[in-house]
């Protein structure tokens, strides 16, 4: 596989929610089909401030006749995302990817549970789309728990609603859906699912994943999560994006979020 750096031409870049943007770009058709959970490194060509590229998950992807289009869903949290948010139609970005390993897709399970916190819906969305489109799966098997601090931080719901029906929305302050942490909402219903026939996919803030780890602690649920770490290279070379992971013997190892992840088994993660 030859990898390349692509020029992404912005087709659209809109604030769809407070501080949350949806960017659509077109790239050359040599861009490889991404697996759900993969990401791109993005930067503005020629701009050295901010210095490093930023990792953003692929939210949606489609292959047209003469080019591909990629959608990114991102939250403005600092300088880099602020600058992305300022780009107008026709601007160009430099991206490389798709990077990292996607989610492991097991089609044999009866129940597939998604737990997303805030912008954590971004990588999960592509997976849900993928699963819904794969013929062998009934959308009824899919349950989504989507949470955020407040209504304005719930993103990606409209797209979800087109894909599946069993969606529980919750907010910390009750401004949309149930007033509850998303992990608590899931915990309340956990009895509905049998560990053997359920697979869980989760993405969200570290604290959310930590409490999920506690909830699932002694259970036999299989749960894959997508992690975030600061990145420099995105390609596995710099060892910068380390995360502490148990190996088979249970000893601590530093794995690279970009190349060994971003998807890991929740049970293998050693939290600090």
């Amino acid at each position, binding site marked *: 596989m030859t990898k390349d750096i692509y020029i992404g031409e912005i087709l659209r870049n809109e604030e769809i929610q407070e501080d949350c943007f949806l960017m659509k770009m077109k790239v050359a058709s040599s861009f490889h089909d991404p697996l759900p959970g993969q990401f791109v490194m993005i930067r503005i060509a020629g701009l050295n401030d901010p210095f490093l590229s930023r990792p953003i998950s692929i939210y949606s992807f489609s292959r047209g006749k003469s080019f591909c289009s990629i959608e990114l869903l991102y939250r403005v949290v600092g300088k880099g995302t602020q600058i992305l948010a300022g780009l107008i139609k026709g601007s160009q970005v430099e991206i490389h990817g798709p990077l990292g390993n996607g989610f492991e897709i097991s089609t044999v399970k009866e129940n597939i549970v998604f737990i997303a916190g805030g912008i954590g819906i971004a990588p999960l969305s592509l997976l849900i789309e993928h699963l819904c489109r794969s013929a062998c799966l009934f959308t009824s098997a899919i349950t989504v728990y989507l949470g955020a601090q407040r209504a304005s931080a719930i993103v990606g719901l409209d797209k979800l609603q087109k894909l599946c029906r069993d969606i529980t929305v919750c907010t910390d302050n009750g401004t949309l859906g149930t007033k509850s942490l998303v992990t608590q909402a899931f915990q309340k219903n956990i009895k509905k699912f049998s560990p053997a026939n359920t697979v869980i996919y989760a993405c969200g803030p570290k604290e959310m994943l930590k409490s999920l780890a506690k909830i699932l602690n002694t259970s036999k649920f299989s749960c894959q999560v997508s992690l975030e770490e600061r990145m420099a290279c995105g390609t596995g070379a710099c*060892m910068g994006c380390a995360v502490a992971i148990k190996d088979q013997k249970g000893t601590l190892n530093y794995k690279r979020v970009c190349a060994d992840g971003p998807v890991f088994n929740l049970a293998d993660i050693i939290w600090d």
Partner: protein
Amino acid sequence: MKSKTSPQMAVNIGQLKLKNPVMTASGTFGYGEEYSGYVDLNRLGAIVVKGLSLKPRLGNPPPRIMETAGGMLNAVGLQNIGVDTFIEEKLPFLRNYDVAVIANIYGETYDEYKKVAKKLSAAKGVHALEVNISCPNVNKGGVSFGSDPKIAARVTRIVKDETSQPVIVKLTPNVTDIAIIAEAVEKAGADAISLINTLTGMSVNLKARKPHLKNITGGLSGPAIKPVALRMVWQVIRRVSVPVIGIGGIMTAEDALEFLILGAKAVQIGTANFINPHATIDVIEGIKNYLSNNKIKDINEIIGTFQP
């Protein structure tokens, strides 16, 4: 305006013959594999692999990196698979390519340097050793091997005694007078000198009132340090007669040419790989174009042509 015959790009670092003067910097190009999708490794002057220690090293706990103005800090802590695994698992891949492979080595004690050097010296497909002496010297209470000329010389001699491969000694910039260290390692037998490694820096997380790096301090690299790197290459080049390899903040062919014109025989591309995975090839192509446009037939004609 391009001339038809491609300029001659080969340079020699002592006995080590390179297709062109553009190498990768240790720790920024993995073991070559990581970038083999982006870059035809055969086109590189040399691949300097991630620093190797005797035993595998876990590295530092995260967070390990932080962006700064025109650069980045890293505190990877030399996480690596160890010299044995490198020889077994990574070297065979590199042997598929027609490219010089330089093993960057690292020890916490003199003895570790010795043993790593010995193992790599016997390994097929390693063409030179680069000795990283910027690491803290466990025997001397954490003071870097590279900040004392006597210690630096001793490490050099130990490695030289274990190998018949060319030995490049890589200097740290965190010293009062880098030329003294350079002279010491030259005298101790270094076949070439590479510089600079990272400047020690730090970043503060104001909100959390904590360091951004778990290790507190880290190594600063990228364009921010280029002026310091150029100055140190300039200081060293006039004090030693062995070839000097320039490193620090090289992003473009122009940056690389600045080091070559100063007198560096070759350069290494580090942090630039992260920003542009194709950086090494872009630099090689850019140098070629520069030579063609200026009707220079051989890269060696411009090395050291700087007029102070």
